[in-house]
Each structure stands twice: as C-alpha cells, then as structure tokens.
C-alpha cells in the first residue's frame, strides 16, 4: 500500500469530523432533548441573533439543530443504503463470475439493464407514485445501486479466480462456501470499500435531490431545507449558504477519501496524479 496523500488525509479528517458531529448531536438530542422545534415567532433570524448561533429557518427552527440532525440523518441513511447495495452487489458479482452459466447470465442481464437505467428518474417515479416512507426510499436506492457494485465485484472475482492461491485452495478441497467467503472475499474487499466510500456521497446526493423535489422522507433532509430556503433567498440567504456548505463538506470529504483510497489500494493504478 502506497503512502496516503495529503488530500486523502484531509478527506478522512473531514469525514471523521462529520461522524463526530453526528454523534455529538445524537447524544445532545438524547440527553439534553436538543431537537429543533417549530417556533414561528423566531422565523428567519440571521446568525448570532437572539442566541441562535446559526440563525433560524423558515419555521423558526434553530439552523444549528437542523443541520446537525441533517448530518445524522444523511450519514446513517447513506451508510445503511450503500452497504446494503454493496452486500447485494458483491454476492451478485460473485455469482456472475463463479456461478452456473444460466443463472449468471440472468443476473448479468438484470444488472446491465438496471445499470443503464436513468437512476434518478426511476427513483423520482417510484417515490412519487408510491408515496412511501424511508423504507421505500431505501429499497429504491438499493435496487438501482447494487449493479454498480456487482460489475466491479465481478471483474475482481474473475481476476482472482485464476490466481495460484485460489487454485491451490480449490485443489485441497476447500468447500465452495468457504472458498467464496474466506479465500476470495478478502481480496475483493478493498476495491469494494473504495466504491462504498464514493457510493456514500452518491446516496447523500440522491436522497437530498428527492428531498428537494418534495419527495423526501425526513424533515431533516438537506434537500428539503434547500427547497424551503430558495423561496426566501432574499430575506435569509444564510439558510442556503449554510446548508450548501454543510452538504459540500461531507461530499468533498467522501470524494477525496474515496479517490485517495483508490489510488492507494488499486494495484493497477498507474499513479497518474
């Protein structure tokens, strides 16, 4: 493994800061009951007014609280969704590379059709027609997300399949189950983890896009906050700016970390920097 670059470290620090932010908010919400509440009298306050560090939003909720709740919501939702996609994707990729030809072709066909689907549009359609909650959103995003992981996993499994250590494991009669999980999976994981980190920012983007279109599932979604903020952009530009910066920070952090890890872990990376 190569030395991690400054950018990667910066990205990793940004991500850890956000995780810390989310955890601190969780504790405060749980023990101090610090949950943003609607207070119409205090609407659209600028930062540092009347004891609100970051001002208030259109319903008079504290912006600090709203953004913190958004961090927690986005992180938890992104981690759950992206890892579900990754798990399904790795299994599907394994079957595509190693399984019986008929089943493999079927799964490959499904994965390829979903892969060239216009993802965001499908998510918009499902969410608007079903009017479901966060579970529907989760199922939808996993449904369109797994083929990306499956394609990468398939390539990796095909590459590793012919390696001497796998052949020798097969030769001494390791069971297929053990061969998959113990022998080959660890070698596939690094590439998948890189994809997972980049996938997290993708999920955060999709979730907030839907929130912006009014198809969100949480009042703390950054997209929903921005949709409200754009109507009061003249009176309260701080809502737009703060929400955008909060969102940009985590997306930048995840992208930097993902890119850096890919360069460091990918054995074929030419180090073109």
């Amino acid at each position, binding site marked *: 493994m190569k030395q991690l670059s400054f950018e990667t470290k910066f990205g990793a620090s940004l991500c850890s800061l956000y995780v810390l932010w989310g955890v601190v908010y969780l504790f405060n919400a749980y023990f101090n009951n610090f949950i943003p509440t609607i207070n119409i009298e205090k609407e659209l306050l600028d930062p540092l007014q009347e004891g609100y560090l970051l001002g208030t939003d259109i319903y008079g909720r504290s912006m600090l609280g709203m953004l913190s709740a958004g961090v927690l919501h986005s992180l938890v939702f992104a981690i759950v969704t992206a890892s579900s996609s990754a798990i399904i994707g790795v299994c599907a990729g394994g079957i595509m590379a190693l399984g019986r030809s008929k089943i493999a072709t079927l799964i490959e066909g499904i994965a390829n059709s979903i892969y060239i689907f*216009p993802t965001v549009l499908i998510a918009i*359609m499902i969410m608007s027609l*079903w*009017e479901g909650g966060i579970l529907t959103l989760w199922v939808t995003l996993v449904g369109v997300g797994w083929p990306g992981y499956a394609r990468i996993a398939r390539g990796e499994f095909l590459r590793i399949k012919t390696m001497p250590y796998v052949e020798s494991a097969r030769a001494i009669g390791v069971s297929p189950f053990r061969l998959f999980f113990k022998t080959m999976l660890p070698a596939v994981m690094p590439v998948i983890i890189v994809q997972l980190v980049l996938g997290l920012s993708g999920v955060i983007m999709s979730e907030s896009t839907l929130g912006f279109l*009014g198809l969100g599932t949480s009042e703390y979604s950054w997209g929903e906050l921005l949709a409200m903020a754009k109507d009061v952009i003249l009176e309260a530009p701080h809502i737009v700016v703060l929400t955008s910066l909060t969102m*940009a920070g985590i997306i930048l952090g995840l*992208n930097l970390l993902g890119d850096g890890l890919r360069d460091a872990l990918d054995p074929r990376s030419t180090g073109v920097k």
Partner: protein
Amino acid sequence: MIQSIVKGLITAWFVASAAFFCLRLSPGDPVERILGAQARPEQIESFRQKLGLDLSLPKQYQSFIIGLVKLDWGRSLFKDKDVLEMIGESLVPTATLAIISIFFSFLFASFLGTYSALLRGGWQDHLIRLFCLGSLSFPIFSLAPILIIIFAIKLGWLPVSELTTPLHYVLPLITLILPLTSVLTRVVRNQFLESSGEPWIAVLKAKGMGSFDIHLRVYKVCMPTILNLVSMQLSVILAGAMITETIFDIPGLGKLLLTAIENRDYPLVQGLIIYTSLIYLVLYVFTDIANSKIDPRLAQS
C-alpha cells in the same frame, strides 16, 4: 450496432413496464388518493373507468403497451390534455438547456483537461483539480441558489426568473455547465495522460511530427471513453436540467414533472418518466454506434 439497438429497446420496455407496475401495484388505491377521502363510491367507480383501472391487470398492460406504440399516452388528469402534447410543449426549453450545456462543457473540458495534462504537476494542474473537486461538491440544487446569491443579489450582474432575454439563460446554463465540465475535465486529463504514454506516440515523435498534431491524435483516441462518460452522465444531466428549471422558473419538462407530482397527475408522471427515459436510451444507443465508428476496435469486440 443492431445489438445496441436491441439492448436499448429491451431497456425501454423495462422502463415502461416498471412505470406501469409502479402505478398499478402501489400500496393503497390511487383513485381514492386522487379524489380524497370524501369521494362518493360512484364517483370513484366512474373515475376508475376513465383511467381504465376497472379491467384486469393483463388487459390493462396490453392496452398500455399498444397505447405506447400508437403514441396514445393517455390524458392528463388535471388539465385534461393529451400527455404527449403537454410533453412536446415543454420539451424545447429543457432540450435547449441540455444541448447547450453539453456542448460548452465538452469544449471547456477538452481545453482544461488537456491543458492540465500537459502541465501535469504544475500549479495550473492543481488549481484546475481543486476547482473541479469544489464544484462537484455542490449538488445542482445548492449550486443554483448560491450562484443566484452571488451574481444576481450581491453583484447584480445577471437577472433571474421570467425568461425574456438571452441573458436570463446565463445563470441556469452556468449551473449546468459547472458540474458537467468538472466531471469531464478529470476524465479528459486522465485519459490524455494514459494515452500519451503509449508506444505509437514515440513513433510519431521520432518521425518528427509536431506536438500539436500529436496532441490532436491523442485526443481522438480518448474520444470513446469521453463520449461513453457523457452518455452515462445523461440521466444526471437530464435530472439536473429539470431541477434547474424548477429553480429558475423555466417552463420545461422539470417544471411539468414537479407540478404533475404535486397534483398527483399519474398519467402525466408516467408519461414524463417514460419519455425522458426514451430520450436517454436513444442517446445511449447513439453514443454506442458513434463509438464504434470512431474506434473500429470496439465494433469488433
């Protein structure tokens, strides 16, 4: 070529069916949801007949597919207009936005990407990379309001809303061009660097070809990858154009979709999704064919 058309057709059928079953199998009764809780039973019944929901599922599916092929996509529930007609009216602004922004992004990215590849490691390269990373961190619906704050409110250079002059299109276009240019620049740069290390470049150099001609040839080799990326990004661009419209009040497909969602105008939502997916797929197939024309090796494999 035939293969990619077939692939596109199958996917189109997939999308259309998904749209169909999404509506039919959605939890709860869509008719009751549209009409509200106070609706009388006979009202619900007649509405159901109007939508064709009283038939059996296979029958509905059959008439749905036939309707699609015959270009009879149903009527809007809210405005009682033909869905395809409504889509046709809103298509022009969206298509204009998408085409112009793709064109300029392509241009800027080709320039910035090759420039930063040629000056690899220099401060210009780092600056361009930083710029790309930065603009990619802002999703379109946060980029647009920020641009409005900077250019329309603080500086007062550009107008917003009510599209009367070409100047009104500048901000929406910047909103779309910035992220797309950033994605493409990084790919152009990396592709350019990768290809310029290949042995045939050394041969051209040894033969005494000028560096500009060599760069041009390297760029041509990168084309399929870049075109592929544009086609992979198309759904993002379309979705982006739609979101941009809702922010800048442009009467395009995005605005139509959003109002359709708000009004629970299911035939219109369904039609819009199928239509945009079709555009996307046609362009996808088109890039596939264009790629095999540019690089004959791809056609053989």
